[in-house]
């Protein structure tokens, strides 16, 4: 465990038990949230989260923390809207400060096609309970005075959508809060514990093999982030996931307040301001699939150029840090949650570049699935068998990044 974390959360150390009712592979936000909700909502606390490194060391500690529900298909809007609401009350529920802040989010359109997309998004969001409105260039300027509406004379802003409930929260605090909540209820979290295989009998999972020994399990849930294919491979299960790196970076302190989150799919980048005043930026995934978490100059150069067209003040800032995470990309840009053809083996994956916002709701719904044995309505459209049923949930425009 790293020192800084130890001060934040009293992660008590337990010797691993011989077995648990539920074993969760991966101590990212989704795994921790599932453990938290199993214990809090359903009294199921004979649960272990197995993390091969330290909790939040994967994408849940590497993301740009955008929370929003302005998705492009009804099933997704309803699902993410639930998460936006759960985030809004997580501080009250846990008594922990996650630095949640509602900022509002602008999605800009610089072409007729994008304008149509954003208009449709606003109407569709309103119909399914998410707070998004269509805005004109003048309104864009009012919401974010720093924007150059001509975009350096190259790609003028024609309008966009404004998602008023768009928010951010501190990722580490979210992870630790959920970990602490789960521990308080009696769940175990084992760090430095890598799952190396599954104990199987026919088509049934009976437990996990780890570098710390074997552990029996009633149910095993894979929450292994970008490494999900490897974990599913242990169960002989093939899944439609490809792992791509996604990079992000922050600048030094910007002395003005920059309120909203701003994104542009025509310019392929998004930006927000951190609590420290840094400008936090990201773009698209790296083109080739890989598990490498190297970040490079290519992205800094291309993304900063595009960002500088829209927000000229960025040109006077310097880049302080950059990093990357391994994203589990699904072919339809929607998550994959729930049962699999392997008995007692559930998966929660396909979070790609947009799963931080879903940490509360996915944990809540996966916990409900484990407790009741039935797939909850909210996540039924996102089950693995949708591919065989020809019911993919294509939502590229909204999920693309962040």
């Amino acid at each position, binding site marked *: 465990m790293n020192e800084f974390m130890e001060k934040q959360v009293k992660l008590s150390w337990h010797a691993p038990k011989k077995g648990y009712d539920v074993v969760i592979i991966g101590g990212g936000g989704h795994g921790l949230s599932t453990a938290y909700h199993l214990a809090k909502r359903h009294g199921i606390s004979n649960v272990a989260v197995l993390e091969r490194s330290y909790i939040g060391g994967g994408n849940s500690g590497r993301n740009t923390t955008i929370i929003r529900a302005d998705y492009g298909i009804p099933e997704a809007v309803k699902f993410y809207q639930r998460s936006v609401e759960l985030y809004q009350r997580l501080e009250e529920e846990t008594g922990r400060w996650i630095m949640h802040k509602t900022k509002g989010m602008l999605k800009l359109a610089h072409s007729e096609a994008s304008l149509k997309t954003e208009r449709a998004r606003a109407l569709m969001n309103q119909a399914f309970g998410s707070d998004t409105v269509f805005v004109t260039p003048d309104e864009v300027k009012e919401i974010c005075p720093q924007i150059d509406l001509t975009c350096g004379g190259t790609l003028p802003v024609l309008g966009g959508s404004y998602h008023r409930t768009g928010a951010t929260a501190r990722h580490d605090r979210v992870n630790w809060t959920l970990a602490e909540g789960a521990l308080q209820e009696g769940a175990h979290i084992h760090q430095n514990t890598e799952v190396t295989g599954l104990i199987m009998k026919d088509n049934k999972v009976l437990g996990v093999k780890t570098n710390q020994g074997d552990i029996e399990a009633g149910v095993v849930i894979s929450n292994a982030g970008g490494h999900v*294919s490897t974990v599913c491979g242990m169960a002989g299960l*093939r899944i439609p996931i490809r792992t791509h790196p996604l990079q992000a970076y922050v600048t030094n302190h910007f002395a003005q307040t920059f309120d909203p989150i701003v994104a542009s799919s025509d310019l392929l980048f998004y930006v927000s301001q951190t609590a420290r005043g840094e400008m936090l930026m990201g773009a698209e995934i790296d083109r080739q699939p*890989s598990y490498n978490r190297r970040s490079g100059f290519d992205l800094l150069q291309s993304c900063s150029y595009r960002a500088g067209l829209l927000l000229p003040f960025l040109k006077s800032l310097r880049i302080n840090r950059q990093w990357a995470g391994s994203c589990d990309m699904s072919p339809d840009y929607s998550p994959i949650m729930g049962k699999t053809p392997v008995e007692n083996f559930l998966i929660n994956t396909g979070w790609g570049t947009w799963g931080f916002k879903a940490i509360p709701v996915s944990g809540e719904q996966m916990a409900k699935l484990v407790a009741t044995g039935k797939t909850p309505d909210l996540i039924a459209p996102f089950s693995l068998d949708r591919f065989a049923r020809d019911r993919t949930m294509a939502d590229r425009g909204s999920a693309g990044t962040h």
Partner: protein
Amino acid sequence: MSLQITCPHCGTRPIEEFTYGEIPHVPETLTDLDARDVDRAFMLANPEGETTEAWFHVYGCRRWLKLKRDTKLDRIVE
């Protein structure tokens, strides 16, 4: 610097000129014909480590080539 791919026709070129293609491989153990179709359409090996893949030289000779890459290090092996 970004990765370089050596094309048998055009020589060593930056990876940005190529598009990636996975070589599909439906497992022999899968015998049900419908299941084989679903696997062929959607399922991926997504291996961690060395793997053989196909790349299309889209901004070059527009031909496919095969290479071996280590996906953990993101390095071309051969």
